[in-house]
């Protein structure tokens, strides 16, 4: 285990304790090794182990939303990310099922386990987005859904008798799939991200990136980054939430060089050099999903799952949710929603929450 004092933000121990609003963390104190040597070993560093054990027992929630035109490989990518069939691919649907006329929100939950740690993963799909002839305001149902989850959480939070562990259905991460046109973003992409980057963590990805050569990929990414910047769209990891210098340098590198990740997904395995790899087999070669020379899937996976999973949840809770909460309380004159202290009935939430599969 770690030698020094526990770090302010851990990525190994996935804590599910609802964290209190944290003050801006100072740089962790350097271990005063001389003193502790004199006094003997205290054992504070076992807190990490304790948190880990607790997490393993309780497990944790993660809610990921995928948005993009149909056919961009959203479900396949999510299945590849979590190495299980957590999202039902539309191609396996009944042939008669057509593109829905309005955007639907479909949330499907799964429990996956790894190394003794249980994760309750909810994948929220948005079929119908961007598929119609007229796509005006097609992001509205999505924004509504996200706000409804915040509202749900808020209602639980202001209860007098609160649950020990409030079920967290808030969207922690929204993967936005950009079509690999090679030119630039589409007007619809800009509209969606402009509206939604303020309420949820958006991670833009370039879908089906196996249609672009290396040069085309890097040109396209540069253009997309520039367009996002020019339009004031802050995707995750947002610059303003970098906590310290270490975060900033790490995130800067990701923001300016790697993102948006150009990914390829697959749920089929092929034999390459004696190994079985996930990939796509074409007459001109096999595209290996986890090969960094072929695509950036591995970068996306490491980013979302291995390094920034907890941060995604924290930013959702501490920033996006708090923004929503503050707005709601302000609308109600500083009082929590529901029955007020003086028995007045306060204005209802913006919309009735839609039932999610729990």
């Amino acid at each position, binding site marked *: 285990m770690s030698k020094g004092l526990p770090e302010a933000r851990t990525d190994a121990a996935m804590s599910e304790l609802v964290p209190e609003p944290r003050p801006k963390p100072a740089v962790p104190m350097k271990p005063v090794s001389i003193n502790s040597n004199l006094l003997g070993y205290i054992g504070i560093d076992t807190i990490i182990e304790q948190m880990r054990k607790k997490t393993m027992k309780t497990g944790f929630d993660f809610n990921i939303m995928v948005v993009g*035109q*149909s*056919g*961009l*490989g959203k479900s396949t990518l999510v299945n590849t990310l979590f190495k299980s069939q957590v999202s039902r691919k*539309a*191609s396996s649907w009944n042939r008669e099922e057509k*593109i829905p006329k309005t955007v639907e929100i479909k949330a499907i939950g799964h429990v996956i386990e790894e190394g003794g740690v249980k994760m309750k993963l909810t994948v929220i799909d948005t079929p119908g987005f961007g*598929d*119609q*002839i*007229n*796509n*005006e305001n097609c992001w509205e149902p999505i924004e509504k859904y996200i706000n409804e989850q915040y509202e749900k959480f808020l209602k639980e939070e202001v209860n007098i008798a609160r649950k020990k562990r409030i079920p967290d259905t808030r969207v922690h991460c929204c993967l936005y799939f950009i*079509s*690999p*046109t*090679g*030119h*630039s*973003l*589409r*007007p*619809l*992409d*800009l*509209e969606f991200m402009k509206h939604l980057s303020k309420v949820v963590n958006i991670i833009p990805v370039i*879908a*089906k990136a*196996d*249609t672009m*050569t*290396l040069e085309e990929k890097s040109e396209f990414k540069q*253009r997309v980054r520039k*367009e996002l910047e*020019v*339009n004031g769209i802050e995707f995750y990891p947002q610059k303003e939430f970098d906590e310290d210098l270490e975060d900033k340098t790490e995130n800067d590198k990701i923001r300016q060089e790697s993102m948006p990740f150009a990914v390829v997904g697959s749920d089929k395995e092929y034999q390459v050099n004696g190994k079985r790899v996930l990939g*796509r*087999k*074409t*007459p*001109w*070669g*096999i*595209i*290996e999903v986890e090969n960094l*020379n*072929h695509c950036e899937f591995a970068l996306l996976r490491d980013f979302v799952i291995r390094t920034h999973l907890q941060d995604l949840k924290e930013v959702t809770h501490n920033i996006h949710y708090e923004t929503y909460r503050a707005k709601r309380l302000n609308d109600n004159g500083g009082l929590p929603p529901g029955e007020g202290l003086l028995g007045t009935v306060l204005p209802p939430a913006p919309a009735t929450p839609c039932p999610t599969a729990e």
Partner: protein
Amino acid sequence: MWKMKGLKRKWGATPGAATTSTAMDKEYVGFAALPNQLHRKSVKKGFDFTLMVAGESGLGKSTLINSLFLTNLYEDRQVPDASARTTQTLTIERRGVEIEEGGIKVKLTLVDTPGFGDSVDCSDCWLPVVRFIEEQFEQYLRDESGLNRKNIQDSRVHCCLYFISPFGRGLRPLDVAFLRAVHEKVNVIPVIGKADALMPRETQVLKQKIRDQLKEEEINIYQFPECDSDEDEEFKRQNEEMKGSIPFAVVGSCEVVRDGGTRPVRGRRYSWGTVEVENPHHCDFLNLRRMLVQTHLQDLKEVTHDLLYEGYRARCLQSLARPGARDRASRSKLSRQSATEIPLPMLPLADTEKLIREKDEELRRMQEMLEKMQAQMQQSQAQGEQSDSL
């Protein structure tokens, strides 16, 4: 395409050669040389061909056109970024290029539709395209009815390559709307762009899905004519293969890839391999090129003229016919032999009204004249009979 083979078989050498003419003179009339004469005349005149490309941006349309015709038509193109495209409406752009090969000149006009399918709201975005196609028909109709018919410029759209996204699951609502708006006005050839995004099995599934949807939505794409029964087997087989691979799944490239030991090929180089544009196992580019340029160029023009243009003309003229003069008008207008009737071209509404009134006047006068003549004929017939019987 005229079959030169048949001709050679009979004459042995090029027609007109002195050695054969004397012997043959007595037995043959000689009009078997007609196709050859037509061929020579056309070669001198050159071919015009107008090709339209339509589809969402980013599907490889420009690259494919450059690959097909080995030119760089889109050198000076500026692709606008998303914020500019938010406010852009669909425009129609025309580019012309003259291509010469084997002594034959082709004047190729490319019609592009930048802005199609880009906006958030694409309702009716196909209307400018439909209007454009009809305008070309209008122009031709006017020219045909005009006085100087020797040098009619044929700017009608002979073929529309419609690009379907390989990322979707078949035709999208916008694709269906566009195709339904234009399929009766232009020869549509559906094409799957950027086909190197698909594995072979996915390509098959997508093609089948598109074919099913086209049938379901009753969209009439360009039909390859059946082979003549006396074509050779190879040609027939090729034709069948081409028909079976519609919609064509294409990949375009103007870059030549030189890999170590292999010969240079036009293709796209990826980290996992190189897609060869002209490899039939990789994509249908060769099929499309063969079909569009090598075998069916003339047929596309003929279908445009004989079927689509005539359909437009009939619709147009019928709608101009007024109720009173309809019978006489429609009867004579639809048969092109009438020398007294001048077909009315479509002009802006105010002019059309005036023209209709003028023509109505003319028709009435002619009707009266004809009736008078008929009466006279009847009279003289009656008199004739009388005199005969006497």
